[in-house]
């Protein structure tokens, strides 16, 4: 094989171009970007002496500003959508999951990777090793695959099209989720929350440290069974609630 072969070079050129053309990169609508940039430039004009990196930068909040931010936060909680890329984020912490609802951002594009120390185990081994009792939904039967990760902190049960993460949901944050409106829906039947829209999810390793790379997650149900936090990804809402109700 001749490395300097022109044909080979051309073939590689073509393959690289085709590869580039197939790479999908998320981007917000250009008009939104233009509006956001304009808002920042106008803000700088109003305060020409200060380089402002955000609405909070370099300002000691006055009582009036504080009252205003509380009002904005309330507006977010009441479901009003602030225009543009709002700096205000509403946060919901529940069963080891932190859900941050802010302006719509691009979905993460990180290729899903394994969790820290993730390995394939049998259900029995997972039961012996995990730091919490593993719950299995009878609606699905035995999982097709079982993964144990981060020293037994997370157990993932897999069925075709269904992923169920179980974790100690009593201490600290295990998963972080970033999403745009709407705010997750409360599901009374299982005492949990339903996230309909695709969103970013990242794993927060035990003992702190940088969150594991973010990936895109689909519709997810989050609930707690005794002391175990659970996130179920894949099925639609009704099916997810049915599966969650069958957990023993």
């Amino acid at each position, binding site marked *: *094989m001749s*490395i300097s072969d022109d044909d*080979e*070079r051309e073939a*590689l*050129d073509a*393959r*690289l*171009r*085709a*590869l*580039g053309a*197939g*790479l*999908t*990169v*998320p*981007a*917000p609508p*250009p*008009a939104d*970007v*233009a*509006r*956001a*940039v*304009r808002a*920042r*430039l*106008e803000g*700088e004009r109003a305060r020409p002496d200060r380089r402002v990196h955000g609405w909070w930068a370099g300002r000691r909040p006055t009582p009036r500003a504080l009252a205003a931010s509380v009002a904005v936060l309330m507006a977010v909680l009441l479901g009003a959508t602030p225009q543009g*890329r709002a700096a205000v984020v509403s946060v919901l912490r529940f069963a080891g999951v932190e859900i941050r609802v802010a302006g719509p*951002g*691009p*979905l*993460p*594009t*990180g*290729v*899903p990777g394994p969790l820290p120390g993730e390995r394939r185990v049998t259900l029995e081994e997972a039961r012996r090793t995990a730091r919490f009792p593993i719950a299995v939904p009878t609606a699905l039967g035995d999982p097709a*695959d079982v993964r144990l990760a981060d020293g037994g902190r997370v157990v*993932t049960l*897999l*069925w*075709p*099209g*269904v*992923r169920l993460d179980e974790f100690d949901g009593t201490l600290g944050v295990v998963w972080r989720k970033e999403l745009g409106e709407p705010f997750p829906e409360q599901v009374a039947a299982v005492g949990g929350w339903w996230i309909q829209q*695709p969103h*970013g999810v990242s794993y927060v390793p035990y003992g702190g440290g940088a969150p594991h790379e*973010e990936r*895109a*997650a*689909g519709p997810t149900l989050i609930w707690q069974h005794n002391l175990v936090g659970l996130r179920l*990804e*894949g099925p639609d809402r009704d099916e997810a609630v049915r599966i969650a109700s069958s957990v023993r």
Partner: protein
Amino acid sequence: MDDDEAVTRALAGDLDAYEVLVTRYSAVAHRTAHLLGAAAEAEDVVQEAFVKAFRHLKGFRRGSPFRPWLLRIVANETHDLTRSRGRRSDLAVRLGREREPYGPEDPQSVAVAADGRSRLLEAVRALPQGEREAVVCRYFLQLSEAETAEVLGVRLGTVKSRTFRALRRLREEVGREHLG
């Protein structure tokens, strides 16, 4: 309104005109930031880059193309970000619709997805940073050699030699896979 006119008006403080430029180059700016390693933070990087570009518009050489000048600011912002995070700039992308955007990772489907494209992407990802960025600019962003030099802030000869070395490495990788 062409770029030159938009720049002229923007220099006079016309934010409408600058909005035209932002709208026009938003997509390629996001693609550049993303492929050079900004990943999930591409949106912040691009916004910051457009704000800085406006501030430094006086330094733009009139009559020269606006796109590479802007993309250089995007590339610099991206480098600052990856440096400040103490991480290696990486090519954080996924291939088209090869995988479901969510759902459990079925080892079998992953194996199927590991076709030539993803192997080539892995090989690009594994290149030394300078060579990888040259490949990203030349092939993934479809920039000319001169534009690539401007965006990456290196000499034209450097772009040529980095591209050459990268292609040689990639050919070796691809060649090995064919034999294996």
